[in-house]
């Protein structure tokens, strides 16, 4: 038997190919040579001297692209590193991530962009694109050198984690980002309304005695930025949309022709604030998990195009950070490794969206939001691919986690559909470790 795993040239034969540009899943075979796709044929079997991966049970899709990841390096390597974060990405089926700028030092200077890029090249298990900070130190006061940042390689600008409270600063940032053709990703949160909040404001916050942040805190911030995007004509992307009102504002702005896109996280699409009755600090995220009606509205927005794509907001925090009183815990949960399984289980299996639709929301849509390459299965394109078993029933356990942090409320959850691994420029990285990997026939 020829082992295709370490080969630079092989065929993936008989897979259901989820090409975002086609109408439906089609059985086909893909030839990978020297990191690129060299042939796509719509037939089950191929006659070849090259090694063949029999992929009949699997779905083959373009590698997922996450445009909202916190890799924590430099500065918070105890939570995550570029190495562990991209290993988590690969395990979740991602071949590219966009890392956010809230590191220490903040990514507000070309030297930090170069550091991250360099570390990604030497230690990364996926492609890493960098979002530069919108303002110096992410303090919302002084606009950064977008020209220099762009030359260093940033693909977007964001003070993610903080809202730019000063509207004049945000206007300037949008105007200037427009000049350099960089999209601006906004974390929308009215800091005064959300001050000291622990969760969504509603019946559950009242019941649990935790300070709530009202949906209006997000919606006010979204509304202002939409107006500034209209005023400046800049490319605005709204991060982690979580409320019905925000979805509605974005939908209406798009109708008016505002240049805006938006993302939703897997957790805001599937989990609601009632879960917080456990006081599990892994459920503390920002924006908070919202009410059931918000979850439904965010889903509806994803289906009708008000929201363009899925993004994880993978936010690692280690156990020491999270094993504290709820008030003391930092916000955030990891998400790269569970994004596909969670959404496949909750949305595809239930018929809310079809598998190809989900693949589009995780590949070509996020790529086009930030103008990134990838997200397609194309002859001569890079062989960045994900292999999925859509039928595998599995339970997500702590030992599966590749991220350096384990802050997820999904440990112990059962999923249908599992990423088997990715090909990054044709190089196989298995998502499954240990004895379970035996199931992966070669």
């Amino acid at each position, binding site marked *: 038997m020829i082992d295709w795993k370490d080969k630079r040239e092989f065929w993936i034969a008989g897979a259901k190919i989820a090409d975002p540009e086609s109408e439906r899943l089609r059985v086909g075979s893909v030839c990978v040579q020297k990191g690129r796709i060299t042939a796509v044929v719509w037939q089950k079997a191929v006659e070849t001297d090259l090694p063949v991966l029999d992929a009949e049970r699997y779905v083959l899709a373009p590698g997922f692209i996450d445009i909202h990841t916190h890799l924590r390096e430099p500065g918070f390597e105890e939570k995550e590193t570029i190495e562990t974060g991209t290993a988590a990405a690969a395990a979740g089926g991602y071949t590219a991530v966009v890392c956010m700028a809230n590191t220490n030092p903040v990514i507000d200077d070309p030297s930090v962009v170069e550091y991250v890029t360099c570390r990604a090249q030497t230690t990364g298990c996926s492609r890493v694109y960098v979002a530069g900070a919108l303002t110096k130190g992410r303090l919302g006061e002084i606009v950064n050198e977008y020209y220099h940042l762009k030359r260093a390689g940033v693909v977007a600008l964001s003070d993610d984690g903080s809202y730019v409270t000063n509207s004049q600063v945000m206007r300037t940032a949008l105007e200037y980002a427009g000049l350099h053709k960089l999209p601006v990703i906004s974390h929308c949160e009215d800091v005064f309304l959300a001050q000291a909040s*622990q969760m969504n*404001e*509603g*019946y559950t*916050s*009242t*019941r*649990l*005695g*935790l*300070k*709530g942040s*009202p949906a209006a805190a997000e919606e006010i911030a979204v509304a202002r930025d939409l107006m500034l995007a209209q005023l400046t004509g800049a490319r605005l992307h709204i991060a982690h949309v979580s409320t019905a009102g925000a979805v509605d504002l974005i939908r209406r702005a798009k109708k008016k022709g505002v240049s805006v896109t938006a993302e939703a996280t897997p957790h805001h699409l599937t989990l609601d604030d009632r879960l917080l009755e*456990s*006081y599990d600090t892994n459920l503390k995220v920002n924006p908070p998990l919202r009410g059931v009606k918000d979850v439904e509205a965010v889903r509806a927005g994803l289906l009708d195009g008000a929201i363009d794509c899925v993004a994880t907001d993978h936010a690692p925090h280690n156990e*020491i950070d999270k*094993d*504290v*009183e*709820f*008030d*003391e815990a930092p916000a955030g949960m990891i998400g790269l490794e569970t994004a596909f399984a969670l959404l496949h289980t909750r949305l595809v299996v239930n018929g809310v969206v079809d598998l190809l639709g989900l693949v589009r929301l995780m590949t070509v849509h996020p790529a086009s939001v930030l103008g990134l390459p990838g997200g397609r299965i194309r002859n001569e394109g890079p062989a960045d691919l994900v292999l999925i078993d859509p039928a595998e029933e599995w339970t997500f356990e702590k030992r599966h986690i590749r991220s350096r942090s384990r802050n997820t409320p999904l440990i112990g959850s059962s999923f249908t559909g599992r990423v088997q691994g990715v090909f990054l420029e044709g190089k196989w990285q298995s998502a499954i470790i240990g004895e379970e990997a035996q199931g992966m026939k070669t």
Partner: protein
Amino acid sequence: MLATRGPRGRGARVSGRGKFTVPFNRKHLLGLEELTADEITTILDTADTFKEISERPIKKVPALRGKTIANLFYEPSTRTRISFELAEKRLSADTVSFSKAGSSVAKGESLRDTVENIRAMKVDMVVMRHGSSGAHRFLANFLDASVINAGDGQHEHPTQGLLDMMTMRQHLGSLAGKHVTIIGDVMHSRVARSNIWGLTKMGAAVTVCGPSTMMPAEIGRLGEGGVTVEYDIRAAIAAADAINILRIQLERQKARLFPSMREYFEVFGVTPEVLEAAPKHCIVMHPGPMNRGVEISQEVADGGRAVILEQVTNGVAVRMAVLFLVAGGSFDAGTPE
């Protein structure tokens, strides 16, 4: 008169003859939301019995002899801490107390490490007051010892809710069908939440009244069957059998949730004139410490309807009952002393 016997340990309980037919099988008391009406009745009945002990010349029974209880107070408290300590001593438990205002994190040792230390020291029960809602759940998740909530953030203060109900029961008879009005800063009040859960479970109708800026989201849904929200204080107490007045904390004014103490007193302060709107038999309660001249006038605080010191007395009995029941104690009804 019923006599107390030492705790028998979980599972070795003699099923009660007479009054105490509902066993109390909980390891922790984290809040009143999780209790059933029967369990609340068991606690209140037990507390009624324990009240007599505090009237004796020698105020001590051996019910918790050999048990170690740690009192951890991470928030300033005089009344609740002393009440628990007295309850523990009157049950012959060995106690240690620890008070440190502020979060445990800020003090250099995490609550998780505190938990590990308690475990290592083989403490049987932990009574905790903590500024973070849910801190007791955190403790109970990691600890073998029983955890008793002496107030967590803005979540619950179950023994306060119980002592309020005990006091109401003594004055009003059964709680079922009675009307109780809670006045003040409901949003930030753990006392309000425990009262709402406890009272509604016992069949009382609860009305909440206070500035709309201090009314939490969807408060009307809280409790068994919900509560009534009424912003006019006279309308709120028109049918009240009991009024429970919440303490207004000065820091809330700093947060500008109401414009001034003067204005608060004018609109929501309970004065003799306001009380004229309530039925003649209506009692006035306050969990303390009182801000005289802010949420309650001097005349009402010291007046004939106030049962505020009875609440304090009942607090010791209720805490004795809770400690006793959580430790696995039960009564052998009818056994002579």
